[in-house]
């Protein structure tokens, strides 16, 4: 449920953004109109948005309509002003003045004729007030930097799709109890039962995260690892960049020598680790890393940089299940 303070903050943020945007729109109006009515227009817009008697959605729609209306009326104002200017210049020319220019006829200057004049005026003002200019530039730099950072985070979290074939069809499955909130890891036998009996998913795979020691020629390094069965690559819809994923079938998981605890029978490393670990030849396929206490890999591949879906749960004999519908 939204609190009053949250709504007030949103309304205030909307007012700040809308008024800031409308200040830019005001630049499109002829300077005399802007000087005469600009502050009144901004005040009216701000008051309309912060008016608590109206819903926030109504305020948002009004702000958008005001910006669109501002652009439209600014264009009309400029056109009218130039028509008036041409009429005055034409009258001056007929009266023997010089308003018509060397060509003798009224000259159409276009809707952007005053733009250069406005820009020169703005630059003169900025030169005359270095303190104001510095504060403005710093404010803009901070604003742009903060917005860039926020957008980068939002893009990574919400906009950029997961690097899987069809992320919208991936489902994370877990077990739930009446006594605890959320889901918890499923046991391996339960996973095998689900996998055998379920008809809702196209494919299922088991995984659980654990830190691993990765050792080769140099000293061992600690890496984030994931135990899984080989069908996880099918579920995610990714292929190894190098090597092969043997045993990718829809039958039982690759490591099912024990019904209680699967035995690792292969390994794959991420592109990042491969880049650091590769020999000058660049080849890692066929080489066997040691992970944990095992050194019995039969398959070594390199997955895309996405890695696997991670879980914050500690390693245990239980695992989480990812399914693809």
């Amino acid at each position, binding site marked *: 449920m939204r609190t009053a303070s949250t709504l007030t903050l949103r309304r205030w943020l909307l007012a700040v953004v809308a008024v800031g945007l*409308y200040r830019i729109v005001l630049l499109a109006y002829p300077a005399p*109109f802007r000087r*005469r*009515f600009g502050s*009144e*227009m*901004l*005040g*009216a*817009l701000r*008051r*309309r948005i912060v008016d608590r008697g109206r819903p926030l959605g109504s305020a948002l729609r*009004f702000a958008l*309509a*005001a910006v669109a*209306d*501002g652009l*439209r*009326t*600014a264009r*009309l*104002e400029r056109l009218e002003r130039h028509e008036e200017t041409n009429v005055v210049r034409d009258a001056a020319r007929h009266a023997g003045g010089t308003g018509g220019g060397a060509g003798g006829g009224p000259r159409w200057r276009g809707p952007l004729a005053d733009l250069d004049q406005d820009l020169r005026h703005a630059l003169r003002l900025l030169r005359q007030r270095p303190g104001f200019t510095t504060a403005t530039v710093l404010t803009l730099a901070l604003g742009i930097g903060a917005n860039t950072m926020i957008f980068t985070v939002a893009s990574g979290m919400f906009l950029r799709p997961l690097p899987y074939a069809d992320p919208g069809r991936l489902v994370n499955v877990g077990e739930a109890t009446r006594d605890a909130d959320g889901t918890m890891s499923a046991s391996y036998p339960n996973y095998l039962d689900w996998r055998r009996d379920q008809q809702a998913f196209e494919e299922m795979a088991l995984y659980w995260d654990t830190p691993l020691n990765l050792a080769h020629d140099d000293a061992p390094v600690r890496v984030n690892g994931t135990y899984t069965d080989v069908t996880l690559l099918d579920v995610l819809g990714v292929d190894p960049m190098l090597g092969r994923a043997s045993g990718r079938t829809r039958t039982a998981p690759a490591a099912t020598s024990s019904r209680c605890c699967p035995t690792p029978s292969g390994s794959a490393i991420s592109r990042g680790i491969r880049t650091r670990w590769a020999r000058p030849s660049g080849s890692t396929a066929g080489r066997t890393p040691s992970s944990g206490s095992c050194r019995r890999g039969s398959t070594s591949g390199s997955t895309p940089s996405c890695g696997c879906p991670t879980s914050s749960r500690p390693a245990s004999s239980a695992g989480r299940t990812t399914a693809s519908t």
Partner: protein
Amino acid sequence: MSDASRSAETPGPEITPAAFHILLALADGAMHGYGVMQAVEEATHGEVRLPPGTLYRSIKKMLAAGLIEETEGPADVEEDDERRRYYAITPAGRRVATREARRLAGLVGLARAKRFLEGTDTA
């Protein structure tokens, strides 16, 4: 019907719907721009909204045409409102608004006679 014919033939400045709404809002007394914006929206139950661009462009034209004038705010104006400009309808504005209202009333009468308003009349 005859009123409508006379109104249509009467020479006078054409006013836009926005200008007519502003004149109607100012008929109750002097207001600042935001007050006009609120009054129009409330009078039309939200169907007509005057964004700042349309509102102040109309105000500029109506000032030039002498339909409204700048005036001092009411005596009990809040401190926050002191810097705002207040606008009041002029006698010429009232005449134009009256003529426009008659013209519209004539048109509505014509539409009613042609049975365009069947099912919407409450009278």
